[in-house]
């Protein structure tokens, strides 16, 4: 465990505050974007892209996924196709 802690601590300190400001700005941008007069499809698409981007930032930097072994990335990626299938497959019903 000592080795793992030391290994984890060897990388440079992640830019936590920078990520925080990016998340803050993106949250404000999302709220502003939601009330633009755009077609519903582009509103939803733009908001989903921003939400996924924010989620990725949290996962990569705050959950330290960026510095985890690639095998863990593979494990984390497993539900993603299932999520996509579940959401998009039912969308095609309407």
């Amino acid at each position, binding site marked *: *465990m*000592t*080795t*793992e*802690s*030391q*290994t*984890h*601590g060897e990388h440079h*300190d*992640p830019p*936590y*505050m920078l990520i*925080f400001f990016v*998340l*803050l700005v993106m*949250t*404000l941008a*999302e*709220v502003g974007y*939601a*009330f633009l007069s755009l077609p519903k499809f582009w*509103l*939803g698409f733009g*908001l*989903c892209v*921003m*939400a*996924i981007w*924010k*989620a990725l930032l*949290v*996962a990569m930097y*705050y*959950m330290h996924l960026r510095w*985890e*072994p690639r*095998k*863990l990335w593979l*494990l*984390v990626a*497993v*539900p993603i196709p*299932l*999520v996509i299938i*579940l*959401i998009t497959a*039912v*969308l095609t*019903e*309407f």
Partner: protein
Amino acid sequence: MSSHTPALQGNLMVHDSTYEPGIQIYNMKLGMWLFLLSEVMFFTSLLGTYVILRFAHPDHFADPGAVLNVPLTAFNTFFLICSSVTMVKAFAAIQKGDQKGLKLWLLATILIGACFVGIQAIEYGALVHEGFVPMAAKYHALGRTGVEGGPIVGGPLYGSTFYIMTGFHGLHVSIGVICLTFVLIRAMQGHYTLSDHRGVELIGLYWHFVDLVWIILFTIVYLI
């Protein structure tokens, strides 16, 4: 954690110093990640249900801001993101062996997390007062429109799906606050050190996941 573990290639045992078995993380962390991935599927099922019902019965639902308090919830989102920062600061502190920093940042995370739940409870109270309850046939958007008697909007599905999704998330946050309190107590007892702070890392993973889920939920439920 490299080791001189022999690897089997064909019928030959090859001594390769770079061979690393498994996923190369400790078991508890792997367990936490597996749990979080199962939670991903749980929240996906709730969101998928919401998407299906919204597309099937758009008359049951309202436009963003018509019923739900978007500015208050945006502020609450900011709060939860702040708590993610304090949580990661707590982890960074114990990585450097800073016990005082660990306790202070954990306390900050607990307080902000509790505030998030409190604000959500206030939001629920206001919505219930306006008649926006699960399975309500119709409800008046009193607060949002500022007009007495407000427009009559929506149907039973909106309230049901809203409270199920945000309620389960709020439950996860509440459980997270309780677990963080437990971790803080252990930190005050000196259980976490520079060389072993797995408990802090694990609760951190859970807390950031809760924040990540809210980022998605806030967008889909409040803004779309």
